């Protein structure tokens, strides 16, 4: 079993998801190679080489991979696929973008968003917004798999893999990068944070999210949101937690002014401890909450901040 894992990074830092995706890969087999594709990404390769369980780091350093365009990245992976039994990436917006292309070009199925590895060909994945859990077995020679990072622990940084350059350049004529506007934040990333505090429609507007910020600052927490809060323009799209947003499983998740629709629960119900603050005692969020506080958030939040 030889496994090629796609390393996710922002040119400066290896994303914390990658150490978790590597963990999943080591459960599929023991010869794990990590591909670092990007522009000026040598320092990423060095970070990647430290991940335990990685036998080799392959670096494709070229402007063609600078913005991780799906067309170029997929063609690179297809070119490299020979000799690998598994191609694995995180189920992030990057992995979701190019991996199905890799699968189609190799004429194999993709197993999306796995939360468990039963064996080298059998995987566990949620369907129907996590209301059912499927165990699936693939007959394909090359298994193309995306991994839900929140379901795996990170490997540690005790490794020292060899680094090798890959000299493959793939450039699509028909797709080009225009701009990017990335949210700047001092806070931990949603998918990596130990504590997440999320606001919903009950927050009423974007300014009121400052009530969550005070608490997040004290707890070192990331801030998330429901779809309703994002759609209403209170906060940015990349803060959406749920079936079709980000999946989180922190030690502590605090849902404020969120009713608990199945699509939201799909993104947070594997958190270790869940707190819900909602003024409606019938809100479905209380069915998954370890600690429910029936209260007006505009009173509860300032008090909570002062008592932390």
């Amino acid at each position, binding site marked *: 079993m030889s496994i090629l894992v796609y390393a996710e990074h922002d040119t400066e830092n290896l994303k914390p998801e990658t150490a978790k995706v590597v963990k999943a890969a080591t459960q599929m087999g023991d010869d794990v190679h990590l591909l670092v594709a990007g522009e000026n990404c040598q320092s990423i390769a060095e970070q990647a080489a430290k991940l335990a369980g990685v036998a080799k780091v392959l670096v494709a350093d070229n402007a063609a991979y600078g913005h991780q365009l*799906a067309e170029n990245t997929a063609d690179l992976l297809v070119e490299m696929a020979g000799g690998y039994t598994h191609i694995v990436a995180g189920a992030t917006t990057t992995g*979701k973008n190019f*991996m*199905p292309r890799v*699968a189609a070009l190799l004429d194999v199925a993709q197993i999306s968003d796995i939360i468990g590895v039963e064996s080298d060909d059998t995987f566990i994945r949620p369907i129907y917004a996590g209301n059912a859990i499927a165990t*699936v077995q693939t007959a394909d020679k090359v298994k193309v798999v995306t991994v839900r990072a929140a379901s795996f622990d990170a490997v540690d940084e005790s490794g020292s893999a060899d680094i090798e350059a890959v000299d493959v350049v793939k450039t699509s004529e028909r*797709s080009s990068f225009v701009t990017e506007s990335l949210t700047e934040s001092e806070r931990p990333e949603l998918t990596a944070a130990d*504590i997440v505090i999320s606001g919903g429609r009950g927050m009423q507007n974007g300014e009121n999210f400052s009530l969550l910020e005070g608490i997040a600052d004290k707890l070192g927490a990331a801030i998330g949101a429901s779809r309703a809060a994002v759609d209403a323009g209170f906060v940015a799209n990349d803060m959406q937690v749920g079936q079709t947003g980000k999946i989180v499983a922190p030690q502590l998740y605090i849902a404020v002014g969120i009713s608990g629709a199945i699509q939201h629960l799909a993104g947070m119900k594997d958190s270790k401890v869940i707190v819900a603050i909602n003024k409606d005692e019938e809100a479905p969020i209380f069915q998954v909450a*370890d600690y429910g506080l029936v209260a007006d958030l505009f009173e509860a939040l300032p*008090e909570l901040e002062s008592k932390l």
Partner: protein
Amino acid sequence: MKILVPVKRTIDYNVKVKVKADSSAVDLTNAKMAINPFCEIAVEEAVRLKEKGVADEVVVVSIGSKSCQEQIRTALALGADRGIQVETEDALESLQIAKLLAKVVEEESPEMVILGKQSIDSDNNQTGQMLAALTGMPQGTFASEVEVNDGKVKVTREIDGGLQTVELTLPAVITTDLRLNEPRYASLPNIMKAKRKPLDVKPAADFGVELESHVKVLKVTPPPERQGGIKVADVDELVEKLKNEAKVIS
């Protein structure tokens, strides 16, 4: 410009499914079915492009048994011009769906294909990207804004860190995210009109595509239930529990 919109019949998003007692599948008996919400957004976008004069025809296609004609009719009521049902009784995987759609693309030669980013049943998030790969079209996935200009389309994409804009040469594949638009409701007169719009039925077997499944579902089980929690009386009790019982804050 012609736009092709693949739509899928799925469970209504409000329904919380249950798993069958024999762990073989989810139980869809009598479940309320609907058009996949992301496909509805795709239809809306195509219809808006037609209303703006950018597109002149919107064709919807659904792959499935006869019942998916309901969802094709829904799309026609929202403003699509004609429908195609690719008929099959099999529950196909995204790869096979993408292969069939690639054949439809060959026949119809659309300048743009707009799909949903994800089906809310399989939660696959694959078909659009696979179709793009199979047809050699560039892709703009998870779109929150689409702007067509001079044989090109600019797509603003919702990504984990924020937003990214790419420019694609047409023909191109786009998949929709939630913020792309808010779909309209079909009016009664439009629902009546939709009944008379053309709907072609073509057997999947006629497309000459390999439809064998690659993935076997061994079992489907319910997710672990969370233990019911408690209600705390006030903020003081909440802080006390988090510190001393759950030990998640200090």
